């Protein structure tokens, strides 16, 4: 697919949003990556140079359709892979060079739920977030328990502490997983498609909570999603990816252009500006398009 959308890529140009006056947390600078079956064969997937920043209390959405490179970018940010070129820094330190323990103290990653082999209590599950701070046996200290309880309370799941993970609903489980991330006391929280299995009410609740938590705990949040509407409503910045290329970086109002989004998501869309200066995306049925 040709990138006829908009050639003026906003590389590195970050538009200050009024409230993100805090210190810079994450700095992604011209980071790229390539997957190849072996070292000698041609890469099967590449992520072109991508640059953006996230300050504390900010929520950045990485947006794009499937196979656009969102997960690769997330892995680069989390430091589990090192960029081919460029750098990914958290508070000035390259994330891929942190040792696994320090990295886990700084960066929390929330994935879509993974199956549990043996049942565990939600409270004990949240205590796992204290793992990077303990040593060897990691018997929970009073502080650890207080932090875990606090984390559960922050996501409004204090009452779930004594329940087993298996008997929780999707939304409850998502909150408990988020609480574990909070218990890590991170500077950066990464979320991979957190809204995937949630209904719309739970989705809105989660994003609102993420914003509030970012505010309270002074960390930066990076959310990978393909939910255009949610990103428009809650993100301070949006990184738009398409076929491994970073097309746009900026506040939703700047990135959300009808032609661009239609091309990227291959669906007829309508974009209008809402009252708070945030864009709104509506799906346009093809029928009406035919009619016009």
């Amino acid at each position, binding site marked *: 697919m040709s990138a006829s959308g908009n050639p003026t890529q906003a590389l590195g140009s970050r538009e200050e949003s009024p409230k993100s006056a805090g210190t810079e947390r994450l700095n992604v600078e011209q980071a790229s990556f390539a997957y190849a079956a072996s070292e000698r064969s041609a890469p099967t997937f590449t992520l072109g140079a991508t640059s953006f920043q996230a300050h504390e209390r900010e929520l950045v959405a990485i947006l794009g359709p499937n196979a656009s490179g969102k997960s690769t970018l997330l892995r680069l940010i*989390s430091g*589990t892979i090192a960029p081919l070129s460029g750098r990914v820094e958290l508070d000035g330190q390259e994330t891929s060079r942190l040792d*696994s*323990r*320090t*990295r*886990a*103290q700084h*960066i*929390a*990653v929330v*994935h879509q739920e*993974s*199956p*549990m*082999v*043996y*049942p*565990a*209590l*939600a*409270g*004990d*599950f*949240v*205590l*796992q*977030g204290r*793992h*990077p701070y*303990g040593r*060897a*046996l*990691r*018997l*929970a200290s009073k502080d*650890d*328990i207080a932090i*875990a*309880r606090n984390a559960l309370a922050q996501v409004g799941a204090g009452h779930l*502490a*004594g329940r087993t993970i*298996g008997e929780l609903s999707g939304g409850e489980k998502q909150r408990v997983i988020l609480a574990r991330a909070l218990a*890590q006391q991170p500077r950066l929280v990464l979320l991979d498609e957190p809204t995937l299995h949630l209904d719309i009410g739970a989705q809105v609740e989660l994003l609102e909570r993420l914003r509030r938590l970012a505010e309270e705990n002074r960390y930066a949040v990076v959310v990978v999603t393909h939910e255009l509407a949610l990103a428009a409503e809650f993100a301070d910045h949006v990184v738009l990816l398409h076929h491994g290329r970073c097309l746009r970086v900026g506040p939703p109002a700047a990135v959300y252009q009808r032609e661009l989004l239609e091309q990227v998501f291959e669906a007829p869309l309508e974009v209008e500006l809402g009252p708070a200066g945030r864009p709104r995306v509506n799906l346009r049925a093809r029928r009406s398009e035919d009619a016009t």
Partner: protein
Amino acid sequence: MRPLTLRRLLWTCGALTAVLLACIVLALKLGAVPISVTDLVWNLGRIAIGRGDQLPTEYRLIVFDLRLPRILLGILVGAALSVSGASFQALLRNPLADPFVLGVSSGAALGSILALIVAPQIALITPLGAFLGAIATIAAVYFLGRREGQLDSTTLLLGGIISASFLSAIIMFLMTTLAGRDLRGMVFWLMGDLSTPVPAGLRWIFTAGLLVGIGAIYTTAADLNLLLTGEREAIHLGVDVTRVKLVVYVSASLLTALAVSASGAIGYVGLLVPHAIRLLFGSDYRLLIPASALGGAIAIVLADTLARTVVAPTELPVGAMTAMAGAPVFIYLLRRGIR
């Protein structure tokens, strides 16, 4: 929230140790030759005050030279098999993993037979061959279980089961064609048997290996908890997954090889005991590993006492007892599936 506390850890292990001690007394008492508990306690007391030499010889032979070493061997074998079973279950994220199911026991049996064929005159060749056989089988099964560089637990289990039957076939072949050799003991080996005492020189190596193996696995207990919730999650929570996997894989193999070289293929202990402990005390590996070690010891001591006494004076192989109890549990777990 019920976080593991030092207190709970010690209480649980203490209680299990008490049960184990009771089982030891029971096992010392029961047998083809009946001995009363008061007599036993009295004589233990006499030994404690250094007057053991006044005991009648046969009494000392039976209780301290026959039953006690056998019980201690059972404790070590039970602990080793249970801990390696629990470790393999975490490593492969599969509750059906067990050294017996993974074919390691058959590999050890074949190793010892080959060792007997190649160099029957060398002392301690049988346990050495078993050890090498166990290590080689684990490596081979591990290799079979890899798909696209990733360890696939279903493939691995199937690889183990297939390896076990392949190795058993080779054993059958060797036993039929090499009838001239003294391989009758192998039959007992294949069923798992504690009646053959471990040579004195090997006893210390075995104890040291067991403590090192369990200790090494125990240092990763907290990491294993996270590995169970998923490898990716574990990495993001600061677990050095590659290192933990290596440590646990090597240690669990060592434990299995030690156990099999000492007692043959005692099956299902590594499956049965960790699951019973999970039901009783939860699945936290920081508690599960020491509790499984003690539970495995209890299980083997009891199973061997049964094997010695059910049809006394004839002895059953202890492996037959554990398989009788273990196979139905395996089927049950298999049918229940991974919840």
